[in-house]
């Protein structure tokens, strides 16, 4: 579904991703873990070209998205993204946050988008917040709305960039619950996270990144039970 070939990214002299090749298959739930500064967020942000790769190609469903002539807006309409800091639009109501993109990209009429928003909000238990503004919501509620906002575009894959890292501990659960539901419905997901429990329970594959490389990857139970690389063992001994 997403094919990454020889991907490198540097900021100035600093090489953040070093020649990464990876493939993400439909229906997979890929969980990316690793120490901070390992390049995992940059890797994720390259997948929808929020970061422009310095070298290498990324292909999404047969379209080479690293080609400057590709209409990246069309590609992004099929890839949802959820950010660490939610990035809801504070100048709009929740309903407008959700319906803006489907309507402006002509995916839906305003009426259809409103119905979709209501249905999605009901699903995450926030239908009474439709006319509220983001400033009135808690962090956990904001992040659930952010997920719903991405889902309203009916994406084929969802990218999560540390979705629970900015949340109070007691709100982490409600967001992970929504993500778990989404996984059960068969959504293809790439999740950068520090939630090892989530990685173990929901992931179908775990990637461990360090120093701009994917050092090790495995099916989650084997990954956590028998890490092979010394760096992985060291990392896991600190976080588990």
């Amino acid at each position, binding site marked *: 579904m997403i094919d990454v070939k020889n991907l490198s990214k540097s900021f100035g002299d600093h090489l953040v991703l070093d020649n990464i090749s990876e493939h993400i298959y439909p229906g997979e739930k890929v969980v990316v873990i690793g120490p901070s500064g390992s390049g995992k967020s940059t890797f994720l942000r390259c997948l929808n070209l929020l970061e*422009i790769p310095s070298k290498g190609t990324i292909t999404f469903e047969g379209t080479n998205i690293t080609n400057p002539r590709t209409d990246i807006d069309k590609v*992004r309409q*099929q890839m949802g993204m959820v950010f660490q*800091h939610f990035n*809801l639009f504070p100048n709009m109501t929740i309903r407008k946050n959700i319906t803006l993109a489907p309507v402006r990209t002509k995916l839906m009429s305003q009426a259809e988008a409103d119905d979709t928003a209501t249905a999605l909000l009901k699903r995450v238990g926030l239908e009474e917040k439709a006319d509220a*503004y983001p400033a009135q919501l808690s962090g956990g509620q904001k992040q659930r709305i952010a997920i719903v906002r991405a889902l309203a575009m009916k994406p084929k894959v969802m990218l999560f960039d540390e979705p629970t890292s900015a949340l109070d501990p007691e709100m982490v659960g409600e967001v992970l619950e929504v993500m778990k539901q989404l996984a059960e419905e068969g959504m293809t997901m790439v999740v950068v996270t520090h939630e090892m429990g989530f990685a173990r329970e929901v992931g179908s594959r775990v990637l461990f990144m360090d120093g701009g490389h994917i050092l090790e990857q495995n099916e989650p139970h084997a990954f956590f039970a028998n890490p092979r690389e010394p760096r992985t063992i060291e990392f896991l001994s600190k976080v588990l």
Partner: protein
Amino acid sequence: MIQGLIEWFDRLLPRFYTAFIEEDRWKLYLQGLENTLIMTVAALVIGVLLGLVVAVVRTSHDQQRPGRRNPVLGLINAVCGIYTTVIRGTPMMVQILIWSFVILSSSRNKVMVGIIGLGINSGAYVAEIIRGGLMSVDAGQSEAGRSLGLNYLDTMRFIVVPQAFKNILPSLGNEFITLFKDTSLVNAIGAMELTYYAARIGGRNFDYMPPLIGAALMYLAIVIIFTWLQGKLERRLRQSDRR
């Protein structure tokens, strides 16, 4: 010493009478004030329009995807860069003299020349105000918009610009105040605004103090009123943040 002071105060009223009441001279000040306000508003309109164009060109040029740079936009951006550098790097007085005696030397309508000079000057500053306002919006906001598949213009129009507006408005108010006071410079090219009349009346009566102090008080009064309005507006805008 005390005697001199008393005599000075004694003569004050007749001096102000000559400067303002005699021969209905107060009408001239009002006429000048009217021209001053017309020039301020017209120059601000030019400045905002020009500033908006320059700011949009410069930000959109900076935010292009590498490998997909538009050469025409690059050229326009270079022109905008030269414009802001030249305007912000030379004195307003010199610019006004150049407009009046070099570029538009055949024009008799000095108020119009003043408007053009002030407006084009103001545009360079407004451009920086708007650019600063656009950059003050968290980068995550436009990333969120773009990640949903919205194009650059829609992201700007619905997400970035409405949020930038709140940061731009107070600075734009300050620009209005600056521009309002700077209109007094065009008296040097003979545009008939408030300072022009004050100086003329002072010259005619061989008594500069009353008309100039009077003009200064008029400027001050308008600035105070405007600052007060601006404060009210800012408080209202902040309120909507807390909703």
